């Protein structure tokens, strides 16, 4: 019996011909776009995380502290909520790094009589402090209250900027997700209606001769699932192919622009999830066919 039902499903696909092909290709497109967006988002997420790691707050000290008291000071700074790590930068170190930064103009340092720079503490903020501008401002205020602190450089700006980036990402994701969802629903609806139409006469005869309900519905379901499966497998193939061809070409470019040394692709589990999604989507279309009458 199952053999017959599958044969019926294949027959429907052949008969629907160009339209079945369209439905499969639309599922392919929707899933490929979904996969591409998924990859893009996760890589952009990596880039944002990396930029967040690079953010530093600097506390300039009024005077260079006694080397022995440095560990205690660092411990107190690290106790401030939102501080992930703190590093002491002495005056000599500061001058050396200024020289690195100046590059061509480094000669000015050699002409200096005395070292005019202050000692400072470089702080990497924790994720909790970057989560909201309020948390960041609270941390900066606490740091400014230290008696040793002359000035705190770094503001809530970077947090603002990061959260703007994340909003942008979320917005783009929502937009693409919405469009894809719409396209997928349309695809399924269209395919459903077509399948239904193509099988109308078969369904009528089946009902009139008293075929059991599952015999009537199963070919529709199987056929939908088959379309979804084929679409999803092609989509995965396209994604893997695009990745193989594109990634080596894009990695240097992405490193240059986003500072991300290496792109990551979807793990096999996600690819499998994509295939399952496609199959279920197609099956849903087939199953809905009855309701759609």
């Amino acid at each position: 019996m199952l053999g017959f039902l599958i044969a019926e499903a294949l027959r429907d696909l052949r008969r629907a011909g160009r339209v079945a092909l369209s439905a499969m290709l639309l599922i392919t497109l929707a899933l490929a776009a979904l996969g591409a967006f998924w990859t893009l988002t996760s890589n952009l997420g990596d880039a944002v995380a990396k930029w967040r790691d690079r953010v530093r707050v600097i506390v300039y000290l009024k005077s260079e502290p006694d080397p022995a008291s440095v560990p205690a000071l660092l411990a107190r700074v690290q106790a401030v909520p939102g501080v992930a790590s703190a590093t002491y930068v002495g005056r000599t170190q500061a001058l050396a790094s200024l020289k690195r930064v100046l590059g061509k103009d480094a000669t000015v340092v050699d002409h200096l009589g005395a070292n005019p720079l202050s000692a400072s503490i470089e702080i990497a903020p924790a994720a909790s402090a970057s989560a909201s501008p309020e948390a960041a401002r609270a941390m900066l205020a606490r740091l400014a209250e230290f008696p040793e602190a002359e000035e705190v450089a770094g503001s809530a700006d970077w947090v603002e900027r990061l959260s703007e980036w994340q909003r942008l990402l979320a917005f783009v994701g929502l937009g693409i997700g919405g469009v894809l969802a719409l396209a997928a629903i349309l695809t399924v609806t269209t395919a459903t209606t077509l399948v239904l139409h193509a099988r109308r006469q078969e369904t009528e005869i089946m009902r009139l001769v008293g075929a059991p309900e599952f015999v009537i519905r199963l070919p529709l379901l199987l056929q939908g699932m088959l379309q979804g499966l084929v679409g999803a497998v092609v989509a995965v193939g396209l994604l893997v192919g695009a990745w193989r061809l594109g990634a080596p070409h894009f990695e240097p470019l992405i490193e240059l622009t986003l500072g991300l040394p290496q792109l990551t692709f979807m793990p096999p589990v996600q690819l499998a999830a994509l295939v399952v999604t496609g199959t279920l989507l197609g099956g849903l279309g087939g199953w809905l066919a009855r309701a759609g009458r």
Partner: protein
Amino acid sequence: MIELQGVWKTFSVGPVKVPALSDVSFRVTRGEFVVLTGPSGAGKTTLLRLLYREDVPSEGEISVLGQELNSARRREVAALRRSIGIVFQDSKLLPGRTVYENIAFVLRVTGTQRSEITARVFDALRAVGLSARAQAYPAQLSQGEAQRAALARAIVRRPTLLLADEPTGNIDDAMAAEIHDVIKDIWVSGTTVLFATHQARLATLLKRRTLVLEGGRLVKDQG
């Protein structure tokens, strides 16, 4: 076997009410051969559709093969239909399948063993004299051939009850006589037959119990 009690069927076409059946009651017992006749538009097809529950009466009770139809659930309707063979007035052959496939389809979807199918299909085709056209598609048949294919499909499952709606409407007299013989053979083998035709002459010819519909009323029940 079949029992109708005060059955009415009224269709609405826009504001107009079309009374297709008015207060029809009769009984058919197991093994009978009944001819249902009446002019065009008398309500013959409507009555048959009620019997296989493709439609429900506006009023009245119907029971077929012991099944009360008004209260029947989907599963029961399907089971009932598996015991009924139907020849539709508009044949309803699937255009994308050959004559052989059309008949095999019915066996397939109702769960007949695969090994039996070919033999049973060809038995049915031989009975209606259409074995030579087994591989033709419906569009390649003359209308008479199509009606015979539809009859073959109706009898291939050896039904308990055969409902035939004008099975010889498009067939010449010689061929029609053959078809009547086929249906008589099925009846002899134990199937109850309800045969609808507008050809009053045929009812006389068949010499069986005859129900006559006129304008939706049962005006005669004799034989």
